């Protein structure tokens, strides 16, 4: 990237008309509400006090929870990377029959909404689950061979549901890599391992850092898995919930602030590491070339291994499907249910009010994602290409929603927007339709922004400079140069955001109203109503919607996971 040739286009500072609205939105919707949370953790009775924090840091069980959250999140990053990165390499590098279908299926864990996924794991690997009972029967054991409890159970669920971030981000990164860099390294005599370590992985670094961040933050905020499988295992999210349930508002707020601070520290550390690692590949429009699998034994082995692996990944979905056909209250001691019927699906059709949540979720997720795409494109552009003071602050604000668990965002929104004070930027949104799309939008800003930022970093800014120097204005350059080039990242991020919003549970449960109740809430009510079958049937409907989205959206990630070859 030529040293002395920066023209007037690059040097000029980013215009205020672009900066002000972005900063304004961030401050009003992201920063402002959370100041109320911080305030509530310090405001005890009628005065400011640090008593809440003193109690926290002298209590054995609270410190246990902090440590639990930290190591579970760290281990989740490692394990997810160990599964996701090799998978992405495998599917991007090798070609064999059925590859593109299997590559798409490898992303299926993302199609299980959090709550439903955890319940499926319970039916599968829980103490009286299908796999557990099968192993027990096969080995002739008197008791269940394992119990789905504690740290490792949480880690299993986390790895299963979060390696997808590494998988998708690595695949998107590989899709944008110029193979000529690798070819150059190899022609200069570097071996495969050396090329991987010195060329490929460093070029993938932005994608990997983004995935690590997402996994760490998601683990820190994860609630369903520790709640259901934790047993006596304490993490901060469950402690917050317990405090809230016991009516200890101050303690809940203190725990929330500690949780957010821990996540923010990680974010800060990783950004420091990531700084100065910007590099760019001069893309020549050549996608990655996949190697066909040639040797005869490998031609059978590779697809077999891929099919077997994908089958294991699909087991929870199959379990969900199975349970959706089991009539209520008939499955007790058997390994597999003994009776099947269409009763649950008939019930879904006969209760038209069950379809309203489906329509609600579709609409709210689409609204939120549309907002995300526009907003995050601008934010990512500003963060990567912009020249203005306060860039670090904007980067911080972009990641802030991820550092704050969904519960916190929901509580903060509910507190801030429960009063009508237009001069203070406060309006009554509680109890209205708009608060849920707003919450989804806020929660998904980091997801879409990170994916888009990674794409922006991977192409050479000289392409934009060329457009400017040929007389194109900013809008044209964005539309004709930047948007098409970041489309893989933007589409991957947007897709994940839409799917996340469709099954969102954690903030929905605090903010929904009768009229805007989403699918996850309806599933929860069915679970409460002791109707596992109906809940599973609704879960299947949700998973099908998500699958349809991926099938449709996968076409956008051109040359990536499912696109045409070469």
């Amino acid at each position, binding site marked *: 990237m030529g040293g002395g040739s920066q023209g007037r286009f690059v040097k000029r500072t980013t215009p205020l008309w672009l900066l002000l609205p972005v900063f304004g939105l961030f401050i009003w919707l992201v920063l402002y509400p959370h100041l109320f949370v911080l305030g509530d953790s310090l405001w005890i009775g009628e005065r400011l006090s640090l008593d809440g924090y003193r109690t926290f840091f002298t*209590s054995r*069980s609270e410190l246990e929870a902090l440590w639990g959250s930290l190591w579970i999140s760290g281990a989740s990053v490692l394990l997810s990377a160990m599964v996701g990165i090799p998978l992405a390499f495998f599917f991007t590098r090798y070609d064999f029959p059925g590859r593109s279908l299997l590559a798409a299926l490898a992303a299926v864990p993302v199609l299980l909404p959090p709550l439903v996924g955890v319940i499926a794991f*319970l039916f599968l690997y829980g*103490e*009286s689950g299908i796999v557990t009972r099968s192993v027990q029967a096969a080995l002739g054991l008197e008791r269940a061979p394992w119990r789905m*409890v504690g740290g490792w159970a949480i880690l299993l669920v986390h790895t299963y549901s979060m390696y997808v971030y590494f998988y998708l981000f690595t695949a998107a990164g590989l899709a944008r890599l110029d193979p000529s860099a690798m070819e150059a390294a190899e022609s200069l005599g570097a071996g495969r391992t050396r090329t991987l370590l010195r060329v490929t992985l460093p070029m993938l670094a932005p994608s990997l850092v983004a995935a690590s961040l997402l996994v760490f933050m998601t683990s820190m905020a994860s609630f369903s898995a520790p*709640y*259901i499988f934790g*047993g*006596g295992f304490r993490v901060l999210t469950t402690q917050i919930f*317990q405090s*809230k*349930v*016991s*009516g*200890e508002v101050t303690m809940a707020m203190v725990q929330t602030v500690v949780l957010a601070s821990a996540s923010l520290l990680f974010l800060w550390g990783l950004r420091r590491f990531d700084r100065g690692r910007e590099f760019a590949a001069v893309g020549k429009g050549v996608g990655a070339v996949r190697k066909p699998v040639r040797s005869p034994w490998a031609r059978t082995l590779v697809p077999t291994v891929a099919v077997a692996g994908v089958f294991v990944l699909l087991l929870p979905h199959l379990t969900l499907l199975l349970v959706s056909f089991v009539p*209520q*209250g*008939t499955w*007790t*001691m058997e390994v597999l249910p003994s009776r099947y019927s269409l009763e649950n699906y008939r019930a879904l059709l006969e209760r038209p009010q069950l379809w309203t949540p489906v*329509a*609600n979720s*579709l*609409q709210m997720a*689409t*609204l939120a994602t*549309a907002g995300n795409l526009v907003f995050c494109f601008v934010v990512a552009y500003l963060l990567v290409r912009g020249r203005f003071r306060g860039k670090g602050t904007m980067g911080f604000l972009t990641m802030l929603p991820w550092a704050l668990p969904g519960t916190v965002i929901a509580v903060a929104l*509910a*507190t801030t927007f*429960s*009063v*009508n004070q237009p001069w203070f930027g406060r309006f*009554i949104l*509680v*109890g*209205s*339709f708009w608060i849920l799309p707003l919450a989804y939008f806020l929660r998904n800003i980091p997801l879409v922004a990170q994916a888009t930022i990674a794409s922006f970093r991977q192409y050479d800014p000289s392409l934009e400079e060329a457009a400017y120097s040929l007389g194109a204005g900013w809008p044209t350059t964005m539309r004709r140069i930047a948007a098409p080039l970041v489309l893989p990242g933007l589409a991957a991020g947007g897709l994940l955001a839409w799917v996340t919003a469709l099954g969102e549970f954690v903030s929905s*449960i*605090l903010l929904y*109203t*009768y*009229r*805007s*109740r989403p699918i996850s809430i309806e599933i929860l*009510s069915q*679970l*409460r*109503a*002791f*109707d*596992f079958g109906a809940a599973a049937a609704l879960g299947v409907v949700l998973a099908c919607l998500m699958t349809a989205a991926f099938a*449709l959206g996968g*076409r*956008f990630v051109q040359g990536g996971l499912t696109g045409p070859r070469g």
Partner: protein
Amino acid sequence: MKKAATTLLAAALLLAPVPGCGPDGDVLVVYTPHGRDLLEHFGEGFEARHPGVQVHWLDMGSQEVLERLRSERANPQADVWWGAPDDMFIRAAEDGLLASFPPSWAEHLAEDHMDPESRWFATFLTPEVIAYNSAAVPRSEAPRDWNDVLDPRWRDQVLIREPLASGTMRAIFAAIIYRESEGTGDPTAGYDWLLRLDAQTKEYVLNPTLLYQKLARQEGLVTLWNMPDIETLKATTDFPIDYTIPEGGTPVVVDGIAVVHGAPSPELAQAFVEYVGSEEALQEAAEHFFRIPARTDLDPAGLPEWLREALPRIRPMEVERATLLEQTPVWMRHWDANIRRRGQAQGYE
């Protein structure tokens, strides 16, 4: 490709109407933990009596209802709160979340089954019981009283619903602590009892549904729960689950109803409260959903047989309401910090 996506997106946004904008007719919104079957029954009953009215209900835990009412204070969405132990109604009333409305049937309630300022009223009385897997445990060997659950035979066989979130479990734990203190107000003996229970406990289970599943699948054999829910299970599923009413006395939870302060449809809300406390509705609740009416004036002949048979066996545990109201949060906090999962480590066998 981009065009197709844009068109699709626009179509999706335009086709789906924003909920809450269209004309809606008369709607009554009920927040309740009572479950779909019961709610559908009384929702339809109310709609039949008030043509043109739609009853919508949201099914959630009673603690969640309380939190929701708090967060919606500025823009209330609910008309009626039906179902929660009385201490939650007392807290909500103190917070100014409930409206004052005396239904005509209030005069038939015992004095402590309603709010002196008419902000909530009892509908049902819910006794707690000991439930067990009847396929693995014959009736003659099932625990007959609370202390029997501490028997070595049930070591690692007891399942407990996550107590902090559950009105039922809070009521049981508080009553036992109160009983063990023998009126001294010192909870130490009660804590000791709960430590021994913790040592017996195999797992704290997330919600009632999972609890039933685990009990039916013999992941544990014994649990503590409430009578109407277990009776309903027996009536509606094949699960091998039965229960005993503790011989020495059991806590009886007072389950209430209230009109929400600032309810969007206050007249409908009052009519609904009037309706579910009527003699006819209470008899239906007893017959189909195993609920014991709180009203004292009902003709025993109109009540179902199971109830007439069960009533004499229920010995309400004597508790002092004010103490429980004040101390339960303290006791539960202590339980969570010092008793949960510590029983076995402290050598209780």
